[in-house]
């Protein structure tokens, strides 16, 4: 009964000290807002948030939410449907109230019970979602709803406030009342509870991380509450080719922590991680025995590192095959790997397990090597102020070979020695070193290590029909991608996928089919696809045959739309070098009347497009090269980036003009 009494008392006192909480009632419609048909602060917007309020009271175990939204277009009506995910069991969504106010002031309340749907249930863990839709929503309506989340007395929750929304926010108010017992320097005698984190450290600090609009901050008050008031928050950027946007949004996160500052947190977490990793990757007797069977005493550091890399890459990487279930492991009497030697003995492990096994083996072989943990660049940007170690999800190994540090990616199946998957390149993380832990960036992938060279030899007939061969030679990321596809699929399926990829870059009317791959199993060689080509190319007039000058075109792929001001970086994943060389064998009597001029389009320091045409008796060869030396472009460079690709796209449309008059006579 004690919690109930506590709850009632607390609610009374909270209302007394916090009139803002009482404001989370529905508001009297503002005539100006009801009449509004567009918002000068958000031109063209489909909807705007007029008010947002979130009150989080951890001592009372509840959170209260309120939103008021103006619908400005048909698209904005999508906000009428509201989904509230929640953890079933000890968490409950209660007191859902909602209403629609038409622009003439008519109020239509939500009637009926919101639906309670299951999202996922595994054992006792259940995630549900309450769903409702506002009634009778029209363009011009104001929709308004509130709800509470209450949770069990044995749970404690510190909120995350997602300040930035899909639409412009006029005004938002956030308030958090934490448990005093978790705040630094506080002695709370009202509870006998003590709290520890997963490492049994006492929780005694409240920390917050914030990314907020200029002039806004988290404001603590003497009552122990934390408040953020914001106005005129721009919507979440929605641009193509953005880096993972989650890392850039306005947000406030509170943490109950054993640490008192983000610095303390990372020092502690890194220490624990380092200890765990060093324990796992200890070069035990079994590991030393395994290493001695792989490397020879006289091997150089380079040879040792490579041989061991090849050995661990050959293991079953369960991230590319399948993870054994708990029941299967129990049946097979296999234990979860706790040491590198377990992974070696099982000949199987996750990417992380294999990376740490490699670390152990390098150490056993006498090399200096350290673990590094980075964030997958396709998922986010490592942020030290975000106190969550799980953002670092990739394990790499930093090895000193011949006096030079090299970052290696042994957990990436089929990744050549010394190379990184682009997701692990040009990103940031923490690493162990002789001097302790530090933050480190991984280097970018050099553009000329990610190459695709397409060489086609095509016989042309008088009507534009082509037959011939095509060889595609790939290194770097493209080769890695196809090799991983070949691990996860049989060769028939891989070939079908490759044919589809050819269809995306070949002219309409032609078909390319792969016959076979060379080097698909060997990450250290070029990957070569041997293909055939057939079809009809170009158009014929009475005296001429017109062909697209560039067989492999960027058809329909002009990637960058006009934007007056780019907000976010442009993320093109990795730099690359693509070379196309297409040779046409012309029919007897056909001659070249015109071809593209040799030319070069350059974006200094970033990218270049080069065209060369060569003509010899009965043969015509067109070579074009696109080299892009960057993965990420700054927003200020957007216009130049777009300009470059506009020029490439336009050049891509050039044609070859072949004189067929003599051929026609011959017929």
């Amino acid at each position, binding site marked *: 009964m004690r919690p109930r009494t506590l709850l009632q008392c607390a609610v009374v006192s909270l209302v007394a000290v916090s009139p803002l909480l009482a404001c989370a009632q529905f508001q009297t419609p503002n005539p100006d807002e009801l009449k509004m048909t567009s918002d000068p602060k958000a031109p063209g917007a489909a909807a705007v948030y007029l008010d947002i309020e979130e009150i989080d009271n951890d001592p009372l175990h509840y959170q209260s939410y309120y939103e008021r939204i103006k619908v400005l277009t048909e698209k904005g009506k999508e906000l009428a449907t509201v989904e*509230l995910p929640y953890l079933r069991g000890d968490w409950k969504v209660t007191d859902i109230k909602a209403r629609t106010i038409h622009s003439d002031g008519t109020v239509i309340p939500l009637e009926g019970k919101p639906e309670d*749907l299951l999202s996922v249930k595994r054992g006792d863990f259940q995630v549900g979602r309450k769903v409702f839709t506002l*009634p*009778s929503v029209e363009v011009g309506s104001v929709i308004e709803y509130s709800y509470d989340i209450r949770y069990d007395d044995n749970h*404690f929750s510190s909120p995350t406030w997602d300040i930035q929304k899909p639409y412009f926010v006029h005004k938002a108010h956030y308030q958090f009342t934490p448990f005093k017992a978790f705040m630094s320097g506080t002695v709370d005698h009202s509870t006998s509870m003590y709290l520890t984190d997963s490492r049994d450290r006492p929780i005694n600090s409240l920390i917050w991380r914030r990314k907020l609009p200029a002039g806004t901050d988290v404001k603590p008050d003497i009552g122990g509450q934390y408040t953020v008031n914001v106005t005129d928050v721009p919507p979440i950027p929605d641009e193509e080719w953005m880096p993972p946007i989650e890392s850039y949004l306005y947000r406030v996160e509170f943490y109950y922590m054993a640490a008192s500052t983000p610095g303390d947190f990372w020092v502690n977490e890194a220490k624990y991680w380092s200890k765990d990793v060093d324990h796992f990757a200890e070069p035990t007797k079994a590991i030393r025995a395994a290493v001695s069977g792989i490397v020879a005493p006289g091997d150089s550091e380079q040879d040792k590192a490579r041989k061991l890399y090849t050995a661990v890459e050959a293991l079953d990487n369960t991230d590319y095959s399948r993870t054994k279930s708990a029941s299967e492991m*129990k049946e097979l009497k296999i234990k979860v790997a706790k040491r590198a030697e377990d992974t070696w003995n099982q000949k199987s492990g996750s990417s992380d397990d294999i990376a740490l096994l490699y670390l152990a083996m390098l150490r056993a072989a006498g090399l200096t090597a350290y673990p590094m943990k980075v964030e997958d660049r396709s998922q986010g940007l490592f942020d030290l102020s975000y106190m969550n170690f799980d953002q670092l999800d990739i394990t790499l190994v930093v090895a000193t070979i011949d006096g030079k540090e090299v970052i290696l990616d042994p957990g990436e199946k089929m990744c050549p020695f010394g190379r990184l998957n682009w997701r692990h390149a040009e990103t940031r993380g923490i690493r162990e070193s002789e001097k302790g832990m530090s933050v480190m960036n991984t280097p970018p992938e050099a553009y000329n290590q990610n190459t695709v060279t397409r060489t086609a030899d095509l016989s042309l007939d008088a009507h534009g029909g082509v037959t011939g061969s095509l060889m595609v030679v790939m290194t770097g990321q493209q080769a890695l991608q196809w090799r991983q596809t070949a691990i996860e699929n049989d060769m*028939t399926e891989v070939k079908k996928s490759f044919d589809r990829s050819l269809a995306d870059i070949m002219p309409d009317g032609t078909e390319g089919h792969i016959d076979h791959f060379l080097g698909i199993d060997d990450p250290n060689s070029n990957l070569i696809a041997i293909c055939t080509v057939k079809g009809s190319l170009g158009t014929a007039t009475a005296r001429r045959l017109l062909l697209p000058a560039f067989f492999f075109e960027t058809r329909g792929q*002009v990637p960058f*739309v006009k934007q007056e001001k780019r907000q976010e970086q442009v993320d093109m994943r990795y730099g690359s070098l693509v070379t196309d060389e297409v040779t046409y064998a012309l029919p007897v009597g056909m001659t070249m009347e015109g071809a593209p001029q040799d030319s070069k389009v350059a974006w200094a320091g970033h990218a270049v497009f080069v065209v060369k045409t060569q003509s010899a008796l009965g043969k015509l060869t067109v070579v074009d090269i696109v080299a892009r030396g960057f993965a990420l472009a700054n927003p200020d460079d957007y216009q130049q980036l777009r300009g470059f690709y506009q020029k490439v796209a336009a050049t891509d*449309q050039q044609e070859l003009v072949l004189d067929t008059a003599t051929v026609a006579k011959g017929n």
Partner: protein
Amino acid sequence: MRIGAAPLLRSPAVRVLSVAIVVLAMCRPAAAGWGSKPDPVPDWALTAAKIPTPAYARDSGSVILSDEYVETIDDQGRATEREREAIRILQPQGRHVACSVGYDVDEKIDSFREWTITADGKTFPAQETDFVDKGVDTGVPVMLVAEKMREVRPPAADVGATVLCESEEQVAPYEREKVWQIQTGVPFVFEALEVDLPPGRPHAESWHRYAPVKAVQVAPNHWRWEIHDMQKLDLRDVKASPDWDALAARMSVSWDDIAVAGKDNQWRAWGAWYTNLEEHRSDPTPEITAKAQQLVAGAPDFYTRVKNITEYIQNNVQYFVVERGIGGIQSHYAGDIFRNRYGDCKDKTTLLIAMLQAAGIRAFYVPVDDRRGVVDPDAPSMYGDHMITAIEIPADVKDARLEAVAAGKDGKRYLIFDPTNERTPAGNLPSYLQGGYGILSAGADSQLIALPLLGPDTNGTQRKGSFVLSADGALTGTVVTSHSGPEGADFRMFLKYTDDTERNNFWEKYVSRDLPGVTLNSFSFIQPPSLDKPMEFHYSVAVPQYAQTVGPLLLVRARVVGEDAVPFDDEPRTVPISLDATGRWRDSFDIALPPGYVVDEMPDPIDVETSFASYHSSVSAKGNVLHYQREYVVRQVELPATEAAAFRKLESAILFDEKGAVVLKKQPAQ
């Protein structure tokens, strides 16, 4: 809100709770499946696991060695379904196999077990931790369902292993049909269906895209059908294919009132069953009657009365549904829909029927499928995914605006209308429905009706452009496109669900497919309020390198914007060819040539005539203006595979024309 945001904290209370959970967990029986004790691998599974892999399956990720259903119908007509399935994993991509059982509020899974026998003969029974329940995700935020799936992730599911699943489920009490999907994306070596009915209870069967198999009576009123060696249906690389579900073989068994002799009678029975299910749902309330009468007040004719009501529903009833149990097939009451102004296809039809009734017009439910070919006249069934409306046209009404008209067997005419499609006007019909079938649910007068296939003039686009070409190859100009019928409706929907930035970005990309390097200088649209009026886009473009300079020549593609060609290939054709929609598409472009250039060569005119389509295009020059025009007319929506050669010829001609360039030559200076 962030799920699981709470840190893992511990208090004495939490520790007590944890102990309690541990004790409870220990009290649970060890399980080899969901809700059961571990069982040894049953005989059926051991037998199935010995079936050799056939040669035809070797390219597949997996093969279903055996799949057997037994439907046991009780005296109340409720079915209990048992399924036993054996799947062999053949390739790495087949490792993702999982067995699952769907269930809703009116259904109950009695048992669900799984065993895996690996290539080397080891056996792994699935444990409780291998099972997960998931809410079904439709992928559409406003279309929610309460249905759930219980799924097992088989242990040891590696290449060479055989996954063996057995489940038993009490099916919803209102179900009167078992749809047996006998063809999937995975080949079957053997499959069987048994239906065990109480004595004297009838059943009826129907087959879609498969020659009927004769049932064997294995016990009194207990029937069994068997199929061997069913090939997989893989359409991933088939161009212009009808929908997968339209082509996949299936069989349906119905029982009780639905199970009558003869296809026409079966369709009638289904329509009557559905009419009964929706009885009184569409009764108009006083509010509905008042609104309907307000909408039709002063309307001069039948068409206008219908249009005023249909447009009201199209504009004012939002799509939103949470389907729960019988709510998956039965609508809400009209009064509730009218008050809330939201619902799904059934609800919109219900409200439409109610409002039309209040205006003195009769209308009926028509269950359909929005994938043409799924509803098969030869396979009576309720299998479908959509609901539309048939509006009875009084005998004395003759109005050319009523184009989407279906004829009933009794000579009555029905205007077919889809109230869920918010932008296709009454009188017309979305292309995805044309040429299909639906069940006119009119009680004893129920029947299967053929949905109309409308003529080319009811749909299409007209593009007009006027351009100026410079000697350096730059092109500037304006384009006006006008879109009518279902195509206009699609563009209206695009406008409805996009904002200004999204529209501009979409259009720039759309235009740049034809005009790489284009700058869109202006872009606007005209959307008349009346849905039966075409909508227009107006835009101006500047393209720096449209014409290509090749020595003294300037090459100009005469077709400036708009693509009518569809992808095709030379592979042998075995499945029908989908043309998507009937319609008429016209282009007319004028290009003013740069001074000093004359036409040296022009593409020849193209004229293709087939029974299903025609294509005519020509280029001409008058003075310094190049004029291109073409007309593409499609008269059918689906062709048999035997027409593949004619289809390829047509598409080749269109592609050739779309690439065609005019060769300009610079005249020597005088």
